[in-house]
C-alpha cells in the first residue's frame, strides 16, 4: 500500500475502538490493527465474566455502546461498533513504527503501511510469549484458558511453571490427560499454595510433569520435548502456552517514545492531547495509566478530535467541577489555582493532573479542625492549598511543625502503610487542603520522577529530623538523602550481620526488620522487630564497635542506606548534633540491654515473624487447647457472608497450641491493594482492609496476597441433586457429594471483620468455647508466651 492514511490505530481494545469508530465516522482514512481478537483482554476473560463500567459517574462519549454486562455482551457491542461504523480492520501484527518525512512507516512482517498519525492503544498486558519452536503458529496452541469445561478426554500439554500454568493444569486434570512442561527443576515462581497443589497432583500421578524440559517442535497431534534424558514425543491435541508476557515497553521505546524513568511501573508522558514526545504519535488507555475501559474509549474518541484540530473538553469535566465545587469559584479559575498552588504536581501533564483531581477531595476547614489523629489508619495523601496546617511532633507534644501552602503531609502512612505518625489540624480559618487517594498517588510516583523524589525525600527527611538528627540543618540532611541509595530486601535477606563493622544506617520505608542475636550455641534468637518508619544500624556507627546484632528483612523491605562516610561527615561538621545523636543512640543501646529476651520468647517472636503476623493489624487465632472442632466459626462466617466462609480453620500453622488459621490479617502494608484496577480494596479508618462492591473479580488481589486469604466467589452457584449430607444432624457424618458449579460473575472475597455487624466478628462471637479470638500481634505475643509458661 503506497497511499498515506490519515490515522493508524494499533490495538483494537477499548481505546482503539473508540478512536477507530470516531475516525471512521469523521470520514478519515484509517486502519485499525489487531493481530489477535477485538477486545483481546476481555476476550481472554473466563466465560460469562461480568465486565464493569467504572467509574459510573464518567459519561461515555463515543460511537460505541458500552455498559456493565457479561464478557460476551461487551464483546458483541465492540464488534457491532466496528461493523456499524465501517471500521477498516487489519490483522497484521505491527512490529516497527518509524517516523519519516511527514508520515510514519509501519512495518508488519513483509507488509508496510504509511500513516500521518499513529494512535498506540495496545494496553499494558504485553504479548504472550510464544512457543519459540517450529509449529508455534498451529491453531491448537492457545495462550489462555477461558472455559476448562470445554475440554474432556484430551491430551493437553501446558508450557510454563508460573501460577497461571499451574491453575490451568489443575483446572483441566480431572477430565483430561494433562502434562506440564517446566524449564526448571521446580516451581520457584509459583505461589506456595499453587506449588503445594501441583506437587501433590504430580505425586499422585494426576498430572505429568517434564522438569528441565523445553519444546523442540510440535505438530497437530504430538509435541517433541527436549529433556535432560534426550528427546521425548508426547501425544497432544491441545497446547496452552503460559510462558509469561513480553511487556510492551521495549516496543514503545523503539518508536522513539521516552519514559520518565526505568521503573517498570512508569508510563510514557503525553500532553493534554495525548500526544507523545514524537509529534503525531498519540498514546491512550492503560499504557498511560488509564486502566478503565470507559476512560480508554473516551480517550480514543478525543484523540481523533485532537488530530482533526477540533477543540474538545475532556469527558471528565463534570467530575472535575464536582471536585472543585468546595472552592466556590468558576471551574477554570479554580483549576488554575490548584495548578499553581500544588507545587508538588507542577511537572504533571494536564491529563495526569485532571486524573489526580478526580481522585481527590477538597476540604475547607475551620480553625483547629482536626484533619487526622496520630494512630488513625489512613493512607491518603494531603496537600495544603491555602492557610496553615499544624503537625504535632510525635516525639514531643509541645512541638508544632507548621505547613504552608504547597507543602504536603500524610506521606508516612502512604509509603509505609502504617498508622498515622502524627496528629494534624488546621491552624487558620478557611484553611484548604486536598486529600488524594493512595492508588492515584502511587500511580503518579510511578510515572513522575519529580513527584516520587519529592515525596521520598520528605519521608526520609522527616524521619531523620524527628528521630535521628533532631537539630541538624534540613539542607544538610537532604544532601545526605540525595547521596544515599534506596535498597530493597526480600523476606529473609540480611541487612547486616552481627560482628561485622558498621558501614551504614538504614531507614525503613516499607516492611519490617527482624533483629536477632546468636546465643552461646550459635543459634539465632530473634530479639525484636522494627516496623517501617524506624531506622536500624546507627549504634555501630556512633560507637565505632562491630554490629551487636543481625538485622534481616521480616517481610519484603524498602530501605534507604546512608553510608558511614556521610553520617560521619554530618557529625563532624555539627558537634552539637553529634552529641545529641550519641545520647539518642546510647539511650537505644540501654533499652536494648534491659529488654534482652529469653530464648523461648525468641522462638515465639520467630513464629510470629514467620507467619507474617508482625505486619498484621489484627489476626484471627484459634486456641487449640479450647477448640472442639465444631466449625461454628466457619458456619457463622459463611452465614453472614453470602454462603462462603472467609476463614479456613483447618489450615494454617500452629505453635504452642495456638493456630493461625487462613484468614485476613488486615496487614499494615496490604499487598492485595497493590494492583486493583477499580481501586476496590480500601482500608477503613479503624484499620480493616475491605473489598468494595466495585470489585471486577480480576483475581489480582487473590494472587498478590501471600497468606492465601482472598478467594473468588460467585453470586450464584448451580448445585446438583440431593445428598445424605443435607439431612440435619446426621448429615455431618457424610461428605457432601454435591458439586457446586460457579455461575455468574466472580468477586473477590475476604474477611471484612464483619464490618457493619454490631458486636464484632461473627466467627469469634459464635465460638462456644472461646477458642477463636481476634487480636493484635502484641497480644498474640503475650498469649504465646503465656502458653509457653513465660508470663
Amino acid at each position, binding site marked *: 500500500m503506497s497511499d498515506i492514511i490519515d490515522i493508524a490505530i494499533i490495538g483494537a481494545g477499548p481505546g482503539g475502538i473508540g478512536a477507530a469508530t470516531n475516525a471512521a465516522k469523521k470520514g478519515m482514512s484509517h486502519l485499525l490493527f489487531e493481530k489477535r481478537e477485538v477486545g483481546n483482554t476481555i476476550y481472554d476473560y473466563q466465560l460469562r465474566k461480568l465486565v464493569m463500567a467504572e467509574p459510573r459517574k464518567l459519561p461515555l462519549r463515543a460511537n460505541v455502546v458500552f455498559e456493565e454486562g457479561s464478557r460476551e455482551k461487551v464483546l458483541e457491542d465492540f464488534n457491532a461498533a466496528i461493523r456499524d461504523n465501517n471500521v477498516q480492520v487489519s490483522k497484521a501484527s505491527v512490529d516497527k513504527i518509524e517516523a519519516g518525512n511527514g508520515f510514519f512507516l509501519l512495518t508488519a512482517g513483509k507488509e508496510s503501511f504509511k500513516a500521518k498519525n499513529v494512535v498506540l492503544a495496545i494496553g499494558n498486558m504485553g504479548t504472550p510469549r510464544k512457543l519459540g519452536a517450529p509449529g508455534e503458529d498451529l491453531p491448537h496452541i492457545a495462550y489462555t484458558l477461558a472455559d476448562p469445561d470445554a475440554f474432556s478426554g484430551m491430551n493437553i500439554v501446558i508450557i510454563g511453571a508460573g501460577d497461571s500454568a499451574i491453575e490451568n493444569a489443575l483446572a483441566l486434570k480431572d477430565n483430561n490427560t494433562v502434562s506440564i512442561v517446566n524449564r526448571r527443576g521446580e516451581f520457584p515462581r509459583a505461589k506456595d499454595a499453587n506449588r503445594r497443589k501441583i506437587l501433590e497432583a504430580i505425586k499422585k500421578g494426576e498430572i505429568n510433569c517434564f522438569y528441565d524440559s523445553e519444546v523442540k517442535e510440535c505438530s497437530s497431534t504430538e509435541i517433541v520435548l527436549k529433556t535432560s534424558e534426550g528427546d521425548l514425543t508426547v501425544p497432544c491435541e491441545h497446547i496452552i502456552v503460559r510462558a509469561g508476557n513480553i511487556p510492551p515497553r521495549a516496543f514503545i521505546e523503539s518508536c522513539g517514545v521516552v519514559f520518565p524513568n526505568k521503573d517498570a511501573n512508569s508510563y510514557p508522558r503525553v500532553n493534554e492531547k495525548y500526544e507523545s514526545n514524537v509529534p503525531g504519535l498519540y498514546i491512550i488507555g492503560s499504557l498511560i495509566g488509564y486502566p478503565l475501559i470507559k476512560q480508554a474509549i473516551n480517550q480514543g474518541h478525543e484523540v481523533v478530535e485532537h488530530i482533526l484540530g477540533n477543540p474538545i473538553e475532556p469527558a471528565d469535566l463534570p467530575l472535575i467541577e464536582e471536585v472543585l465545587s468546595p472552592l466556590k469559584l468558576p471551574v477554570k479559575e479554580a483549576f488554575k489555582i490548584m495548578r499553581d498552588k500544588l507545587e508538588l504536581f507542577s511537572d504533571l501533564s494536564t491529563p495526569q493532573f485532571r486524573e489526580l483531581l478526580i481522585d481527590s477531595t477538597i476540604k475547607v476547614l475551620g480553625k483547629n479542625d482536626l484533619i487526622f489523629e496520630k494512630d488513625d489508619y489512613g493512607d491518603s495523601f494531603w496537600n495544603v492549598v491555602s492557610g496553615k496546617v499544624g503537625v504535632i511532633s510525635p516525639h514531643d507534644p509541645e512541638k508544632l511543625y507548621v505547613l504552608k501552602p504547597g507543602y504536603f503531609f500524610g506521606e508516612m502512612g502512604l509509603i509505609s502503610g502504617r498508622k498515622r505518625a502524627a496528629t494534624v489540624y488546621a491552624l487558620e480559618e478557611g484553611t484548604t487542603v486536598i486529600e488524594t487517594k493512595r492508588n492515584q498517588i502511587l500511580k503518579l510516583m510511578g510515572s513522575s520522577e519529580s513527584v516520587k523524589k519529592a515525596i521520598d525525600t520528605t519521608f526520609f527527611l522527616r524521619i531523620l529530623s524527628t528521630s535521628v538528627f533532631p537539630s541538624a540543618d534540613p539542607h544538610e540532611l537532604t544532601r545526605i538523602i540525595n547521596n544515599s541509595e534506596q535498597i530493597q530486601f526480600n523476606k529473609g535477606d540480611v541487612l547486616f550481620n552481627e560482628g561485622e563493622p558498621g558501614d551504614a544506617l538504614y531507614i525503613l520505608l516499607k516492611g519490617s526488620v527482624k533483629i536477632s542475636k546468636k546465643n552461646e550455641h550459635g543459634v539465632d534468637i530473634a530479639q525484636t522487630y522494627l516496623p517501617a518508619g524506624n531506622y536500624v544500624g546507627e549504634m555501630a556507627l556512633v560507637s565505632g564497635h562491630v554490629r551487636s546484632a543481625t538485622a534481616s528483612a521480616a517481610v519484603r523491605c524498602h530501605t534507604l542506606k546512608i553510608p558511614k562516610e556521610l553520617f560521619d561527615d554530618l557529625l563532624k561538621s555539627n558537634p552539637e548534633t553529634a552529641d545529641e545523636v550519641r545520647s539518642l543512640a546510647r539511650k537505644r543501646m540501654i533499652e536494648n540491654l534491659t529488654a534482652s529476651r529469653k530464648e523461648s520468647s525468641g522462638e515465639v517472636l520467630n513464629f510470629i515473624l514467620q507467619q507474617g503476623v508482625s505486619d498484621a493489624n489484627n489476626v484471627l487465632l484459634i486456641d*487449640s487447647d479450647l477448640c472442639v472442632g465444631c466449625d461454628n466459626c466457619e458456619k457463622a462466617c459463611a*452465614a453472614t457472608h453470602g454462603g462462603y466462609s472467609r476463614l479456613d480453620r483447618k489450615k494454617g500453622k500452629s505453635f504452642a497450641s495456638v493456630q493461625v488459621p487462613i484468614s485476613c490479617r488486615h496487614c499494615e502494608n496490604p499487598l492485595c491493594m497493590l494492583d486493583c484496577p477499580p481501586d476496590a480494596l480500601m482500608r477503613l479508618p479503624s484499620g480493616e482492609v475491605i473489598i468494595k462492591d466495585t470489585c471486577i473479580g480480576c483475581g489480582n488481589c487473590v494472587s498478590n496476597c501471600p497468606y492465601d486469604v482472598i478467594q473468588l466467589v460467585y453470586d450464584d452457584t448451580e448445585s446438583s441433586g440431593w445428598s445424605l449430607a443435607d439431612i440435619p*444432624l446426621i448429615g455431618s457424618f457424610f461428605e457432601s457429594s454435591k458439586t457446586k458449579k460457579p455461575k455468574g460473575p466472580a468477586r473477590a472475597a475476604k474477611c471484612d471483620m464483619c464490618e457493619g455487624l*454490631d458486636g464484632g466478628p461473627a466467627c469469634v*462471637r459464635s465460638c462456644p468455647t*472461646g*477458642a477463636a479470638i481476634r487480636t493484635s500481634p502484641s497480644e498474640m505475643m503475650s498469649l504465646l508466651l503465656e502458653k509457653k509458661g513465660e508470663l
Partner: protein
Amino acid sequence: MSRDTFLSLRNYFWLWFSLVITLVCFVIYFIDRPIGGRNGGTVVGYSLGVLSTLGILYLMWYGIRKRSYYSKMTTLKSVLSSHVWIGLSLVLIVPLHAGFSFGWNVHTFTYVLMLLTIASGVWGVVLFRTYPFLLSSQRGGSTKPQLITNIYSLNSEIKDFSSSSKSPRSDAFLKMIHSLDLPIDTSFKKVLFHKEISKLDDQIIAGLLEDIPPNEQDDALSCLKILHKKRMAYFNLLRECKVKFILKAWLYLHVPLSFSLCGALAIHICSVFYYW
C-alpha cells in the same frame, strides 16, 4: 486478654446465678407448708413447675442461638456458660416442684429423661474441657490435613526404599518393610476400636536387622526410622479421628434426648391439666 473458659466465665457468674436461684427455690419450698403436703399441685409446686419449664425452654433455645449468626446478644460462649449452669440447677429444682414424689408414671419418666439429657450434657462438658487439650498436645502442633500429608510423604519414602534402588532389595529387607508397614485404614471400625501401636524397641529392631545382608544394613536402619515415624503418625491420626468422633458423637445423644424430653414434658403438662 480474658482466658476464661465457658465454665468460669466472668468469675463463674452463671454458676452463682444458678446457685442463688436454686437456693431461693429451696427456701421457698421449705417455708411453704401447704395443706395435703408439698407436691406439684400447690401454688409453689406450680410456680416451680413453670420456672423449670421456662428453664428447659431456655436450654432448648441454645440450639437456635447457636445458629443465629447475626445475633448481637453477647457471645455464644456466655450463652453456653448459662446453658451449662442453668441446666445443672434443674437437677435440684425439678424434684422441688414434684415435692420429691416419684412413681412409675409419665411425670417421673419426664424427670428421668431430663436427668439423662443433663447427664449427656455433663459428658459433653467434660469432653469439651479435656479433649481439645488432648488433641493439641498429641499432634504436636500439626492439623489433621498436615498429619495426612505427612503420612503420604512418609509412604512414598518407604516406597522409594523398597523399589527405586538400582539393585533389587533382598527378601529380608522387603519382609521387614512388610511386617512393619501398616496399611492405612481409617474405617469407622478401625478408628473406634484401634489398639495402641507398639513402639519399636531395641530388641525388635535387632531381630529385624539380623537377617538383612550387611550392604543393606544402613538403608534398613534409615528405613526403620521412617517406618517408625509412619506408624506413630498413623496412630496419631487414628486417635485424632477417634477424639473428633467422640467430640461430635455425644451431641447425637444429647440432642435427641432433649427433644424426647420436650415431648415428654408436653405430655406431662397436658396430662396434669387434663386431670385437674
